[in-house]
């Protein structure tokens, strides 16, 4: 019987082996290879992003960057810069020959969790020319100030201004995320604010704490 069908044994066994090898090994392996190739392509893209990022980071001048960060932080503080605004208004008014009459602020939460504005209402007294000079200078100070409204009655100037604050970003994001580049507009903005007058160095350093907290000043 075996002898009779011996001639079909080899093709049958070969066919069986081919079918088995194809289903058990070749097809899963091809699927795996396709996945590996996709994975490899993703890895190559990631590597190219990382290489580019590392090259960019290597090229940074840390000192220059630090200087820019300090200026940007002064222009747009991470917290509500009440003292800085008061010092700026007071210094600028005395510089322009204008007297600082009053100020009204409602700061609310001191440590903000998102960007926002802090509105101030202040009044100043002076001649029209001095007030004009004061307003011109106020447009170019650190922290950056925005004008909401302005009122003039006689020699009194009432201003409603807003100062801005923006907490720093919470995370850097994924490591292979491309480095955020500074656009031309942002570069121009930096150049502009770098020219603005900073009165912060005039902020006096006061001793903190006292023996009896209930004693008078």
């Amino acid at each position, binding site marked *: 019987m075996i002898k009779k069908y011996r001639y079909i044994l080899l*093709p049958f066994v070969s066919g069986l082996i081919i079918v088995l090898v194809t289903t058990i090994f070749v097809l899963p392996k091809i699927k795996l290879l396709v996945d590996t190739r996709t994975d490899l392509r993703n890895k190559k893209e990631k*590597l190219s992003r990382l290489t580019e990022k590392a090259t960019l980071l290597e090229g940074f001048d*840390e000192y220059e960057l630090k200087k820019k*960060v300090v200026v940007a932080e002064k222009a747009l503080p991470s917290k509500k810069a009440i003292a800085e605004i008061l010092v700026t208004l007071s210094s600028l008014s005395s510089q322009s020959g204008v007297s600082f009459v009053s100020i009204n602020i409602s700061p609310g939460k001191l440590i903000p969790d998102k960007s926002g504005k802090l509105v101030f209402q202040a009044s100043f007294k002076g001649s029209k020319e001095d007030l004009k000079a004061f307003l011109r200078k106020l447009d170019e100070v650190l922290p950056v100030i925005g*004008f909401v409204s302005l*009122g003039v009655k006689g020699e009194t100037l009432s201003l409603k201004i807003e100062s801005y604050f923006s907490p720093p970003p919470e995370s850097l994001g994924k*490591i292979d995320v491309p480095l955020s580049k500074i656009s031309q507009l942002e570069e*121009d903005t930096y150049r502009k604010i770098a020219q603005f007058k900073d009165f912060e160095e005039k902020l006096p350093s006061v001793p903190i704490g006292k023996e009896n907290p209930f004693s008078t000043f």
Partner: protein
Amino acid sequence: MLERINLFPKIQAIWEKRMKMRRLVQVVSVVALILCFTAVSLLLSYSLLLTREGNSIGKKIDTYEGKIRLFEPIESKQVFLKSKLKELAKILEVEKKPEEALENLDALSLDGINFSGLNYANGKLQINGKARNVLILDKFVKKLEEEGKNLFSQADFGSINRVADGNYTFNLVLQKKNNQ
């Protein structure tokens, strides 16, 4: 010489054909098997190659990630700077120049006209003033028509009142042109 006598030539031809067919089937089977194993070995080699390349890229990625982690302080400064400058650009985009409100007032001033109050918000200038008499008020209106059109897109008198001393008080609302 003894010659072979073929008694069943047709049967022999069929038999030979069948034998050839069997041999062909066997050869094809062997060739198919060889091809199958060649394909398997090619697949294995290719897979090995991809794995090795993957490992090599993986190592490079680890190296660069380590390098980038060393630069984290610089990266955080850059991200910080970017976020600040982005917001500052938006803030500074709107140039308000409040001193222009006072300069505009100067441009409109006239002998006999006294401005008692001014309010300025969102490009809108609200002026309260007093004119000594109707002729000066008329002169002021003409000046506003001639010179004011370069500065303002709109000018509305809210009110004009004659008061007891013969003076005229007025309330004027001016809308600055967009390009200013």
